[in-house]
Structure formats: C-alpha cells, structure tokens
C-alpha cells in the first residue's frame, strides 16, 4: 500500500504536463488528504517507555516517526495520559511495549480508546519486548500477597545489554516485516548496535571487575538483570515490598543489614523519594547513587550505550 502510493506520487510529479497524470494527481491529492497515514512513507512507531524508544531510534533512524509515551524521569508504573497519546496510538503502525505488565496501570485504557487493530497483541504491528526473553523472579504463586509483584516476572529487563541486543533485533525484525523496502537499513543498524554493545561489554566488564560480588541497596527491585550481568548483588530494597512505602521497622532492618555487610551504595531513580535514601545513607556512611533505567533519565545519556556507560561508571566509583 505504502509503496503503491509512493510510486504514484513519483509518477505524477515526474510528468506534470500530462493531463491524465494531472487529473490523477488531483485524485491522489484527495486520497492523500483522506489517508495521511497510509501515504506517509515513514513507519509511525510508538514506544511506551524511553528504553524501548532509544532502541527503536538506533534501529529506525530517520526512517521512522517515533513517539515515546513516558518521560525518562517518570515512574513507568504510573504515566499520566494526554490526548496526544491516544492520537499517536491510533495512528501507529508499530507499538513497542514491554509485554511484562510494567505498563499495566496505564496502557490498557489508552489502547482501548485508541482502537487501532494494527497494534493488537499478535499482530505484526505489536512488538512486545519481553517476547523470547526469560524473565527473572517469576513468582511461584500469583496471590500478589508479596506486594505489587508482576505475575510474569520482573519487567525491568532492558538494563541488561545482552537483553537489549535481543530487543533491538526483535524491533529490527518488526520494522523490516512492515517496511520491507528499508529492511536492509534496519538490519545494518541492528548490526551496528550489536557491534557497539559487544565492544562495550568488555569495557564495562573491566570497570566492574574490581567491585564484583559487592552488595548494593536499591529503592525498588528494578535491577536484577543489571546485577546479574555485572556480578553484583542488588537484593536489599528500601521498599519493604514493591510499591509499598518504606516503614520505620523495615528501614531499621535495612540499616542493620547494610552495616553488617558493609554496603557502600544505595541506588535511587529520579521518581523515588531521595530523602529516604539519604537518611539511610547518613546512618550507614553509604553513598546515594542516582540511577535510571531509561536513557535520558540521567544527564548526558541520550542513547542506550551512554546510559549503561553512566550507570557502570557511577556505580564503580561509588563502590570503590
């Protein structure tokens, strides 16, 4: 459809003197006015979260129109809907979401209102990042008595660079299937991204080597994949249970554990209450390290590689 319209446009413009063509051009203009989406040469891509957005940008470059719904400094569990979200979803050719219930609180009503059959689950226009990824910490029973647990497993997986490669490949395949004309471009971009990550993995590994095996405290359980990749233990949390605000007795316990294990760092994200982390840090002598799951959540991290660069160097410096 897309290519058909484009070839018509080219034919019409190439021979403007021809009356038949001019007439056809007018018809075409009317068709274009009615079908702006079909006529646009670029894929309309919507990413729910900034990490998927950053990967989509690596793959799609200037061949896609990209809209990212959540801001990098926003809590991915709670995102405020705006009218443009519905419009973007309605016009989307591709929707990239996590597929692991992280956006459960806000994406379903938006999709219900957008009513776009192209991006329904199972359609080629829906790329679910978690597909083909083995999620960590899948709860054995789903009573949800253990807090705001995601039934499918921990959904904060993009911070593992090897998983990010898999997601990027998945995105490249989706784009190629929907826009075969640019398949080679998407594939080349994926190869470029893969090579960049492979080169960086050694560098990151070397930076983290001296601090390997150390324990780190986090506000929320967003970092099992990062910890797994770089050989850290991020298994003590300021929240007593996911989504539940810290209570005094729990914080006392955390402080005792931190003293016993000589833990040197607490990682917090922009949308967490930094004062709680600082209170615990001042009681234990640990450092508060600002972290983000999302490119753009820390200054100077507009790409995925820059984000992991920042996370690795910040944490290594704090743990030294």
């Amino acid at each position, binding site marked *: 459809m897309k290519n058909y319209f484009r070839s018509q446009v080219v034919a019409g413009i190439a021979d403007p003197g021809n009356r038949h063509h001019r007439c056809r051009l007018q018809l075409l203009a009317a068709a274009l006015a009615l079908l702006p989406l079909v006529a646009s040469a670029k894929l309309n891509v919507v990413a729910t979260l900034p990490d998927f957005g950053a990967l989509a940008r690596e793959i799609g470059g200037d061949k896609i129109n990209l809209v990212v719904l959540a801001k990098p400094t926003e809590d991915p*569990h*709670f995102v*405020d*809907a*705006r*009218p*443009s979200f*519905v*419009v973007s979803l*309605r016009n989307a050719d591709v929707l990239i979401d996590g597929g692991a219930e992280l956006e*459960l*609180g806000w994406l379903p*009503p*938006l999709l*219900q*209102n957008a009513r776009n059959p192209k991006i329904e689950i199972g359609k080629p226009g829906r790329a679910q990042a978690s597909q083909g990824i083995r999620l960590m910490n899948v709860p054995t029973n789903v*009573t*949800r*008595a*253990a*807090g*705001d647990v995601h039934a499918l497993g921990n959904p904060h997986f993009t911070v593992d660079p090897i998983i990010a490669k898999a997601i990027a490949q998945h995105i490249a395949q989706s784009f190629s299937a929907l826009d075969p004309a640019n398949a080679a471009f998407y594939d080349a971009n994926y190869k470029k991204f893969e090579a960049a990550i492979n080169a960086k993995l050694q560098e990151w590994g070397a930076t983290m080597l001296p601090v390997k095996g150390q324990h780190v405290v986090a506000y929320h359980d967003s970092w099992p994949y990062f910890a797994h990749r770089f050989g850290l233990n991020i298994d003590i949390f300021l929240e*007593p*249970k*996911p*989504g*539940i*605000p810290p*209570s005094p007795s729990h914080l006392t316990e955390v402080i005792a554990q931190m003293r016993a294990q000589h833990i040197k760092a607490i990682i917090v994200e922009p949308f967490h209450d930094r004062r709680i982390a600082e209170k615990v840090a001042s009681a234990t002598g640990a450092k508060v390290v600002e972290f983000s799951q999302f490119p753009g959540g820390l200054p100077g991290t507009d790409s995925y590689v820059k984000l992991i660069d920042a996370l690795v160097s910040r944490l290594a410096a704090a743990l030294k």
Partner: protein
Amino acid sequence: MWEVMFWPIVACVLLPWLLVYLGLHVVQRGIIFIDIAMAQMASLGICLAVLFHLDLQGWATFSIALGFTLIGGAIFSVTGKRSSQIPQEAVIGISYVVAAAAAVLLLSRAAEGDEEIKNMLVGNILLVTPHEVWKCFALFVAVGVFHFSLRRNFLLVSFDRDGAYQKGLRVRWWDFLFYAVFGLVVTSFVRIAGVLLVFSYLIVPAVCGINLATRISHRLLIGWMIAWLGGIAGLFLSFWWDLPSGAAIVCTFGALLILISFFALWQHRRAHSIGISDSR
C-alpha cells in the same frame, strides 16, 4: 480530534448538571470538602476489599465502598447539629485525614501495590468509555428524579435550616439522605473523571452562580452554562496544547471564575453608581 475527544465531550455535556445542582447545596451548607471526604471514605472501603482479596470490579467491593460512604453520611448528619461549637468543616476534614491514613495502613498490610486501587478510584476523563458514560448518566438521572420529587424538603434543609426545624422536619434524617445520595454520585463520578474534576464541577459553577444571581433557578442556569463552557473549553485546550485533560478543565474553571468575579464586581460598582443598591 473527534475520534479522541468525542466521549470526553459527551461526558462533559451529559454528566455535570447534577453536580452543579448538588454543588449549590454544598456551598450553601458550607461543607466544601465533603466530596473529597466522601471519595476517601469510598476508597477506604475499596482498600478493605483489597485486604480480603475481593474482585475489585465486583459487587461485593462496590457494596463495601457504598457502605463506607453511608457511614460517612451518618457521621456528617449526626455531627451537623443545629448549634454546635464544632464547625461541620472540621468533622469533614478529620474524616478525610483519618480515612486517608487508614487506607495507607490497610494497604501496607494488604501488601498489594496501589496501582489497581488508583485505577479503580481515580478515573481520567480522557479515557472514559461509552459504557461508563451511559451507566453514570443513568444513575444521575435516577438521582435527579429523586431529588426533584423531594426538592421542597431538600432545599428547605439546605437553604433554610431554621425554617426546616420550625416546620418540624426531621432534619438529620434528611441530611443523611442527602449525604448518602451525594456519596453515590461523587464516588461514581470520581471513577470516571478523578478527584480534581469532581471538586471543580461541584464548587466552581455554584460559586459563579452565587456571584451573579440570587434566585436558585438563576444560579443553577448560570452554573450549568459555566460547567458546559469550562468542560468543553478545557477539553479543547487539553487537545490543542496536549495537556492532561482533567487538570486543563480545572484550570479553565479557575480562569472562568476570575473573569466572572471581575464581571460581578463591575456590575456591583455600576449598580452602586446609578444608586440602585442605595434605594433597595
């Protein structure tokens, strides 16, 4: 734009009339924050349902939430004595904070994140579904008929309490009836449109009406105009500038109220200078 904004606009046309009318009562009684206290009572009921692992969309949860608003209504009708040292607004404020704090305590034990509860309680006018709009509209029509058929007593109790007592009305009983129905209306509208909007729709049009007119029917008409204008203009602004819709409507109401206050001041001044108000 219509595809996205159609149902929000329908909601803003079909639903606020009842809130404006109830708002006149609420402002007259001087119990401005009752809606927020009532909504908080309902959410406390829902937290209890979470604790018992009930289906949040089911009838049991709804009944518990309604039960809690009835308890709220009972408290407010008992404390609203004819001559009390303690203003009603103090009781309302206390009910609000205690209900909010109790919800925090329950949730920390229920150990279920508050995503679902927030979803359940606080709607977003942008994302209303046709089904929600019609269900709410049907409820509002029923409540409207109920209020209309008993309007003499309801109006007497709100606007002329001394008169109501003199006539021998059972004022507390009428208060309770008012609060119970009010709680039902507020809770169902909050689920569609959120707390900010419910408050704005109750209070701002009523205050505008009081500013510009003295008769209840005139105040009601002015309030309806303001509610429609503010709601629809707010939705348009929210679309054009891509702002969160509920907050855009509330700020539009704020701007309208400022304009109307200036207009009322100017009218008052003019009346003074011609000498109308002196000859009253």
